[in-house]
């Protein structure tokens, strides 16, 4: 439960495939890992009343959200046999087709990697104060609500 490993979860703008590749490469020295699971959230070009979502603009109650990310991650380490767990979430504008969420779990065995990744994603969606404004191509907008 120490704070020493606490690092920021929010990144400005979309998450790049290169960031994901670097993150994977950084785990190749940890030779007790046998399984990684990676979840990526991608902004969908949903159609609503004939208008198409071109981007989502993310805002958050940042201090509370970073606290929530930290607690969610700690609880995953308590529930599952994990070697590593990382969460990154976008703030600001993320265009349709770009990535807004990157959850990465690693474990000696696949069951823990899978279960922990799913757990983290569900917790992030339900417990972290992040808000999303879906911007249509005609510059009108609506607010996204998680199910």
């Amino acid at each position, binding site marked *: 439960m120490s704070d020493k490993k606490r690092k920021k979860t929010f990144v400005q703008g979309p998450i790049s495939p290169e960031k994901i590749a670097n993150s994977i490469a950084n785990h190749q020295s940890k030779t007790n890992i046998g399984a990684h699971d990676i979840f990526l959230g991608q902004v969908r070009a949903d159609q609503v009343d004939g208008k198409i979502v071109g981007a989502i603009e993310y805002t*958050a*109650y940042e201090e*509370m959200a970073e606290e929530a990310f930290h607690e969610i991650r700690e609880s995953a380490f308590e529930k599952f046999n994990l070697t590593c767990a990382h969460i990154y979430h976008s703030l600001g504008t993320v265009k349709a087709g770009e990535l*807004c*969420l990157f959850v990465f779990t690693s474990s000696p065995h696949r069951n823990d990697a899978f279960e922990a990744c799913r757990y983290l994603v569900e917790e992030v969606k339900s417990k*972290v*104060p992040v*808000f*999303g404004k879906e911007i249509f191509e005609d510059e009108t907008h609506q*607010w996204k609500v998680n199910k």
Partner: protein
Amino acid sequence: MGFVSVKYFGMIAEKTGKEIEQISFEEVGNHLTDLKTYCEKSYPGMGDIKYQIAINKCLGSKEVLQEGDEVAFLPPFAGG
């Protein structure tokens, strides 16, 4: 008497037209229920939104407010 900091987010901030304000106990008393009523009255449309309240970054933590508390009105979450 004191003040609380009130924060608004997402579609709620859109209704209030501001993201933060100080509200005094003199104006609304120190009960959360009264603060909610006050805000919903001040900002038309806010009462139609389903929201949660966090006090000092914790959801549903207490009913009686204290000097310096940070009260946040949070619309539905949309992370991920």
